[in-house]
């Protein structure tokens, strides 16, 4: 054909260098960071333990548990709000579930529904208070953190005289509904003894992070999330239902905490009021490593998956580095957070700087 050499792409669809596009995406830093952290631990451990089936299963389990929270927390942070109460919510929702099963002898499906209803209702209340009062969500959810934690301790002790509810395993044994939360997807028997279990929370993580990414990037609601975080007033003036967006997202973060609580209670067989401590901060770290701006209006749910993976690799990696143990995990986590904030801040400024 004679026109084969002519530029076939019309001006209105002029090609943009895909590499440059990727460099300007919010999750670029997280992807690069995950690869870097992986390589560092590969070097430090020589792959021993770290790269074996059991090590990988461990990394993925840590990543999945924190990633379930990180995905919804990312969306909330992009909308410009925080939820510090999810750590306490993990403990509280776990107790609600265990009490329903063990103390009130409810069927598994009903207990799970009550647990989620409790969490989502709490999330709604929290969101409603934030929207109505206009107070910083940091403070409202900080108050909620203490109310939930203290309330769970007080209520559980009043009902059972203990702060741990066990005996869940007897109630859920053989229940097909429970398998949704505690099944093992793949179990590899290791020749030297033991097994590597890939558990169902990995699937939940992928589904939730995938769903969050789709909502954020491909739905109206997702655009509203960006707009709400960018400037709530401007978004409201353009007709975005800002209050609805924020309240819905508080309900989502609480629901994700309830999901993690359900998975933990059904896997371990008991609920403990102290479960989930510091998870609110780990979820924020996951989101920030994933490229979400603390100031809102910018970020990625997909990035939070890489943030969660980085946490998983780090926690398991340290365990296998000779001369180290998991005591050092928090030190490394803090360092990672600092590095991620600096790098992502630089990348964000680069992406939004005038260029033409």
């Amino acid at each position, binding site marked *: 054909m004679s026109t084969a050499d002519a530029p076939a792409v019309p001006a209105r669809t002029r090609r943009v260098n895909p590499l440059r596009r990727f460099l300007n995406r919010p999750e670029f830093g997280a992807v690069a960071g995950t690869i870097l952290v992986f390589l560092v631990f590969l070097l430090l451990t020589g792959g021993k333990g770290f790269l074996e089936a059991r090590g990988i299963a461990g990394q993925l389990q840590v990543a999945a548990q924190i990633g379930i929270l990180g995905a919804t927390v990312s969306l909330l942070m992009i909308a410009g709000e925080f939820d510090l109460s999810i750590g306490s919510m993990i403990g509280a929702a776990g107790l609600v579930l265990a009490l329903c099963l063990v103390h009130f002898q409810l069927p598994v499906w009903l207990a799970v529904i009550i647990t989620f209803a409790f969490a989502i209702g709490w999330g709604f209340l929290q969101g409603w208070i934030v929207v109505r009062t206009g107070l910083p969500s940091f403070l409202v959810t900080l108050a909620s953190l203490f109310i939930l934690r203290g309330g769970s301790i007080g209520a559980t002790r009043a009902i059972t005289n203990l702060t741990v509810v066990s005996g869940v395993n007897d109630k859920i044994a053989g229940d097909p509904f429970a398998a949704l939360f505690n099944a093992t997807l793949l179990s590899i028997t290791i020749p030297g003894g033991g097994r590597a279990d890939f558990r169902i929370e990995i699937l939940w993580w992928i589904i939730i992070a995938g769903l969050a990414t789709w909502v954020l990037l491909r739905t109206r609601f997702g655009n509203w999330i960006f707009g709400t975080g960018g400037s709530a007033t401007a978004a409201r003036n353009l007709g*975005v239902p800002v209050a609805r967006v924020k309240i819905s997202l508080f309900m989502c973060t609480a629901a994700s905490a309830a999901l993690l609580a359900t998975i933990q209670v059904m896997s371990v067989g008991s609920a403990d009021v102290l479960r989930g401590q510091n998870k609110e901060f780990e979820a924020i770290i996951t989101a920030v490593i994933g490229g979400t701006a603390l100031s809102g209006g910018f970020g990625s749910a997909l990035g939070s998956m890489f943030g969660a993976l980085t946490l998983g690799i780090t926690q398991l990696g340290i365990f296998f580095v000779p001369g180290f143990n998991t005591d050092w995990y928090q030190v490394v986590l803090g360092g990672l957070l600092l590095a991620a904030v600096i790098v992502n801040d630089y990348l964000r400024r680069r992406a939004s700087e005038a260029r033409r």
Partner: protein
Amino acid sequence: MSDTAPPVLEARGVSKYFGRVIALEDVSLSVRAGEVNCLLGDNGAGKSTLIKLLSGVYQPDSGTLLMDGQPLELASPRDALDRGIATVFQDLAVMPLMSITRNFFLGSEPTRGSGPFRRFDLAACDDIARAQMREIGIEVRDTSQLVGTLSGGERQTVAIARAEYFGARALILDEPTSALGVKEAAIVLRHVLRARSRGLAVIFITHNVQHALPIGDTFTILNHGRLAGTYRRGEVDLEQLLRLMGGGEELNELARELEELARENAGARVARTVPPPAEVPPPPAG
């Protein structure tokens, strides 16, 4: 355009109070299709309050709004948008960390599919945004690029292009030129004229008389929350407008002071009279 048709948008004797503060009292303003009404006034004159009433952000404490002669109640900005009243708010026009396309369609995203599969049709939106931007003279290479990468004038034109695209009837522009340089302001003013020639009713808010004079068909002047006058094009000149805005007296005084100063220094320099400043200096953005 016919003078017998009722104005597209009209405020009749509207008042708005914030506690004991009178933000606006008994103010009337109207704009017809294919006309530009320049709303002039110093800072704090009530310009922003008036356009917030017209765009549904606030509701008047008394008085009525009318559209095409029919009483109009605006419960929210969404309400106003649905009736074809699009507003570009000062400084809050666009989100720097969102892409051009996402900004363009924020709050009015077209969707494809139905039920749980209803999705934001980004591909089609990219094409529309690119075409609209080209029409107003900005060639965008990549509509996924963040608005923060555009210059101040270009950001303002994104907001205006968006308002024009969605606002079928009336376009309200709140100080779109205040933070811009001369060249960029001229680009924005050209878009205002273009919107007028397309038959939109335009309300153009400014405190810069020089920007208002060449494009206004009507001039509505506010002073301390009250109407200081409404004039047709040709009925007033620059100095009269300045005086009506309340800034004229102060500026004359300033000119006299400068003159005196110049006379005192006459020994060192050749004295010259200081012409009255033609322009009220723009305030800091915000």
